């Protein structure tokens, strides 16, 4: 008896909701064995992973705060990925948003202009878009592979940020350390919830999620994007503009990623540093696929990823090495993505019929 995968005509509703549950059970069992095998209390570790991060108001606010960048970028990526347009460089667009927004915050430092943070966010979104426009242009004009160009521009953005915090934007009172001044109060994101770090930027998440859902499912442009991904020749035959799709998806993701970068530096970080993102732009790619490229799915996936990110820090406080924490995170993600096979395929146990010689 060998298992075979047979394509389902209709995705199974049972599998659609059951697959993540199976993946979660598998991961919990794996985690139990893993943590026990390195001599740690497995239940305490799993508790630290999944419960401790959210059983206090501060913990909950941190979950929302960490999920915000992942969800916003993931939403943008999902639109492009639907149309088979591969922007892998959201991390670079995030950094440019941080640079653009941060530069405004520093230019207005100590000027006391009320609402500076709004200008910071807008500038961040625009600089993120501008950075994303480069691979979009190269794709359309020269047919350059956008995966490579957008990816490589991350390193350019990283060096640019490094140059700025070591040079023109360095804190004059910072003893030569590579960091900007701390932004003044009016450039910082107002808090949504006192005693936490959750800021008003979070309010943009439901707006973006609903907006992108409406766009994808209720507009002609959204329909074009989906056709462009599912059947590119059909889209071309129907006269749907491929360059239009490329521009739209890059500018959307670049704008969201740039906004995220600006909100990170004007929010929890509070200044420009050589390192400002723990890789949100990369993790958002996982989030987009984990969320099956749907807006609701992306938002849920972003919170799951934020949970295991924070959980990974918590278990380290119990003596679980970070490499083991990351191994566990990897298994969870692989299990979730692999179990999706069950949604589109069903498993048939059968002995393959012997071919007549």
């Amino acid at each position, binding site marked *: 008896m060998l298992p075979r995968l047979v394509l389902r005509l209709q995705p199974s509703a049972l599998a659609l909701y059951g697959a993540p549950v199976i993946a979660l059970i598998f991961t919990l069992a794996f985690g139990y064995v893993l943590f026990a095998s390195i001599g740690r209390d497995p239940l305490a570790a799993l508790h630290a992973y999944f419960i401790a991060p959210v059983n206090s108001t501060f913990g909950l606010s941190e979950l929302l705060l960490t999920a915000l960048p992942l969800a916003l970028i993931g939403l943008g990526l999902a639109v492009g990925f639907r149309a088979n347009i591969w922007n892998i460089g959201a991390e670079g667009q995030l950094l440019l948003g941080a640079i653009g927004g941060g530069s405004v915050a520093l230019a207005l430092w100590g000027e006391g202009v009320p609402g500076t943070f709004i200008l910071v966010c807008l500038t961040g979104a625009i600089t993120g878009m501008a950075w994303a426009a480069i691979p979009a242009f190269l794709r359309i004009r020269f047919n350059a592979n956008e995966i490579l160009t957008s990816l490589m521009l991350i390193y350019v953005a990283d060096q640019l940020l490094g140059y700025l915090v070591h040079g023109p934007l360095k804190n004059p009172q910072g003893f030569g350390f590579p960091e900007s001044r701390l932004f003044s109060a009016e450039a910082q994101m107002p808090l949504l919830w006192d005693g936490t770090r959750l800021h008003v930027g979070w309010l943009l998440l439901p707006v973006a999620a609903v907006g992108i859902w409406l766009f994808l499912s209720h507009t002609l442009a959204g329909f074009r994007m989906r056709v462009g991904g599912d059947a590119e020749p059909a889209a071309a035959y129907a006269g749907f503009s491929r360059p239009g799709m490329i521009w739209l998806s890059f500018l959307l993701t670049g704008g969201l990623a740039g906004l995220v970068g600006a909100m990170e530096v004007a929010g929890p970080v509070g200044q420009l540093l050589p390192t400002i993102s723990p890789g949100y732009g990369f993790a958002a790619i996982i989030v987009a696929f984990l969320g099956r490229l749907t807006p609701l799915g992306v938002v849920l996936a972003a919170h799951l990823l934020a949970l295991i990110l924070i959980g990974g820090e918590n278990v380290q406080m119990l003596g679980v090495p*970070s490499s083991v924490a990351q191994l566990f995170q990897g298994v969870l993600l692989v299990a979730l993505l692999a179990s999706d096979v069950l949604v589109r395929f069903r498993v048939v146990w059968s002995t393959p019929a012997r071919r007549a010689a």
Partner: protein
Amino acid sequence: MMNRRTLLSSSTAALGLGLTATVIPANLRAQEKLKIGFVYSSLIGDAGWTFMHDEGRLMLEAEFGDAIETAYVESIDGGADAERVVRQFASQGFGLIFGTSFNHMNPMARVAEQFPDVKFEHATGYTQLPNMAIYHVRDYEARYLLGMVAGSMGNSLGVVASYPIPEVVRGINAMTAGARSVNPNFTTKVVWISTWFDPGLERTTADALIDQGVDVLAHFTDSPAVVQAAEDRGKYVVALGAMDQYGPKSHLTAMVYNWGPYYVERTRAVLDGTWASSNTWEGISRDMLTISPLNAAVPADAGAAVTAKQEEMRTGAFHPFAGPVLTNTGEEKVAAGAVADDGMLLSMDFYVEGVEGALPS
């Protein structure tokens, strides 16, 4: 052989057993121990900056045994994570928290203001609060000794440098001054690679420096890649953290941070109730810094000179930046008979005589 059903039922049983056996004692355990948290900017690994901080943490465990409990979180560098991790430690009953990277300073200061009863210690920064002490090491003292060793084994140094911050510039200058004290024509080439850890880039940079003809390598980065390059290419290296296992022939000596004694002292102060915020910047004299044993290739008289200089620094008879200190453009920074003050050392933004090129600005 176990079939699927028995595997399933035995793992369910294991889950059930775990529930009763482990949760209850954990809740009843008394929380009187001093819990000490460490925030690390990179993985501990088997050499380098974080590794040496972790050696200090292990010394704490050996020294205080059951009176304390330590925990650490690795790979926290900049961004929004640092504040959350420091705060998690503080809110989970940790009484003493060490932040070991410059990027932990502002996040730690924000948490420290919200947790006045918790003691915070930050390495390498400049913000001090009533419950947040700062500590760092006068690494230029050991760098000077490294330079003396390099100067007695070759005529030029190639430095794989991280970021042009005062600490690193100071180290480059101290090595060059040390080398020129024994070899007046010694010169130093510097390549900045804008990272603390990137084994591939460290290696290619080291290879490029060797191709340019340097005799001895030095590095401010965390991986053993530069030592391996020197070993493979038949050159010498003065390392950051003892890495002799990677270069038995090439590894002349290394600068070794010795955080343990400081950590023991500060922990004892918390246990005794005598902890007070302070600003510690000490080196060889307080055993916060040393160099690893010299390679057998280093001539005995050169080794003796290094040991003698180390003793002079311990007693305060010698300062690596004693005047005259000239920049590599000939400007006098410290007059003969004077020594560089801490203000100049902490904001050092020039190359001394013997270093080639100009600092990136």
